[in-house]
């Protein structure tokens, strides 16, 4: 172990290989998203020819395809896509920042607070549009900082932060349920959206704010991604490498809450997408390079696939949140069992 360089054989550079794997995984995930998006556009109760879908999208009406594609399927697919990206990205940002897969926004109460605030804003305050999303963001930030405070959370998320978050989450879920019961004009479908999440009846005007949030907050995360990655080595090492730990945490919290809150106020808290995307992406990548984009794409796949199977593959028509919830619950149990064994981190 002397510093003198002996005639060492040229070593294959590990970085390159990891990058190649990341690129491959990202391509596959991106391909999956495009496939599912196209599937949602072409297949429904009846399948259209791809050419009919395309000509409808570009404004040539072909035998009624226009209405189905442009007014029903495209907004739905677009909503699934952007909310999936938002949930996946916001979820993994929390998990990486707190070094714990259980610390995702939908487990620790961020989604629940955004959902409760959105329902409150719509039903009680009769607001709509952007304002609802902003109210949801504020509620999400408030809850995030409350949890940090109550668990005096510095650095990694111990069991305490998770438990406080789960408690707050349960409390806010019951607030949502109560407000829904008090809103008699809502039908069952609308109520389900706020309880488990659904992209049913999505409108392009509802997609727009989520898309804007994805650009703004996703951009913030992209800028903070390198620092976030170094933060996983612990606060001391991160600071020694020139990363301001508290500043990075603040930026990441703001961005992740923004993503999750905007998505939640459009589609409801689609169960477990934020929670599942990061760990699935991490398994695919092997190492955590490129975890943020991979988790975002995974989130989009989960929502698109969940919505499609909820509509057409399962015996009963189910909102997407019920499908993702059914997939996510066993994984949550698995993680809890494993965390008790060796305190897992992401």
């Amino acid at each position, binding site marked *: *172990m*002397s*510093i003198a*360089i002996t005639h*060492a054989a040229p*070593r294959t*550079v*590990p*970085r390159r290989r*990891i990058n190649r794997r990341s690129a491959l995984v990202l391509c596959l995930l991106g391909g999956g998203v495009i496939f599912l998006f196209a599937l949602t556009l072409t297949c429904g109760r009846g399948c259209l020819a791809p050419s009919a879908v395309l000509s409808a999208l570009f404004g040539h009406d072909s035998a009624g395809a226009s209405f189905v594609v442009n007014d029903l399927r495209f907004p739905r697919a677009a909503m699934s896509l952007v909310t999936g990206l938002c949930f996946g990205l916001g979820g993994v940002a929390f998990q990486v920042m707190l*070094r714990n897969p259980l610390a995702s926004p939908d487990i620790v109460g961020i989604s629940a607070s955004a959902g409760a605030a959105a329902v409150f804003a719509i039903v009680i305050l009769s607001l709509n549009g952007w304002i609802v999303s902003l109210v949801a963001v504020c509620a999400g930030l408030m809850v995030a900082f409350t949890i940090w405070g109550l668990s005096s959370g510095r650095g*990694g998320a111990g069991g305490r932060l998770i438990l406080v978050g789960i408690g707050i989450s349960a409390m806010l879920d019951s607030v949502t349920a109560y407000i829904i019961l008090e809103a008699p004009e809502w039908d069952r479908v609308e109520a389900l959206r706020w309880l488990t999440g659904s992209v049913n009846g999505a409108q392009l005007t509802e997609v727009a704010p989520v898309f804007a949030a994805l650009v703004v907050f996703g951009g913030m995360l992209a*800028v903070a991604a*390198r620092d976030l*990655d*170094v933060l*996983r*080595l*612990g*606060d*001391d*090492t991160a*600071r*020694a*490498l*020139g*990363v*301001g730990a508290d500043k990075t945490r603040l930026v990441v919290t703001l961005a992740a809450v923004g993503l999750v809150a905007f998505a939640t106020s459009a589609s409801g808290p689609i169960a477990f997408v934020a929670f599942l995307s990061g760990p699935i992406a*991490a398994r695919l990548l*092997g*190492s*955590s*390079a490129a975890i943020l984009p991979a988790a975002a794409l995974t989130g989009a796949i989960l929502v698109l696939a969940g919505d499609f199977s909820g509509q057409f593959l399962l015996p009963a028509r189910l909102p997407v949140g019920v499908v993702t919830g059914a997939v996510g619950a066993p994984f949550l149990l698995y993680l809890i069992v494993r965390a008790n064994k060796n305190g*897992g*981190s*992401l």
Partner: protein
Amino acid sequence: MSLDHRLEAQNLCAGYEKQAILENVSLTLPAGKITAIVGGNASGKSTLLRTLTRILPTVSGSVLLDGQSVHTMPSRKLAQIMGLLPQSPIAPEGITVADLVGRGRHPHHSLFTRWGSADDRAVDQALRATGIEKLAEREIDTLSGGQRQRAWIAMALAQETDLLLLDEPTTFLDVSHQIEVLDLLVDMNTGRGTTIAMVLHDLNLAARYADHLIAVADRGIYAEGPPSEILTESMVKAVFGLESRIITDPVSGTPSMVPLGRHKVISRPCSRKIA
């Protein structure tokens, strides 16, 4: 090859919320030299290193790098000059050795620069210097404590700073790897002119390898200077509360401390009585 940087503390008070750990400490790390910091458990050695590297805010007083307060310097620039290996760093699950060592390159990049051949070279050299090039693809969780420690040292080396502070770099290492790490630090010091400060618990190795010895006790610096002057029976008694004898290390000619415990001592010096 590297510039000499002067790191000094002036009337430094350091500690944690309302609990003062160090009071009124003034010191200078001699540029281009190896400094060893010794002291009992919980005496504040790690606190000192963390305050010097700006990881911990000062309570009062100042830390100056080349005469400029480190608190006014941009974090990235500071991290290009000064590196720290913390006492108990955290490795994320599943990270490979090469990946971890690569993180040491972080301060040399901005949002718009890409990983380049200079980075590859730095990582390769750090892996080879610490003798873990064969472990490059292994996950950190699957390594032994000593292998892991060497991976962390490699990360600090890959940062290629002119000033390197290490908090107990030799813990977890077997005797031969301890010597190898210390020899490596001397190589860096003489080869590249890196200024090194490290916390060590082994007084004899500290005296052998350091040009400058700092003994921390009672919330301050008990003594500092060349090891031959600092490592004395009275210092060991005052700093560690331990009776000892100092002999000359037959290999290096530096002072060497032999502890006198309550047992297993055949010839006890008659001048000292132990209660």
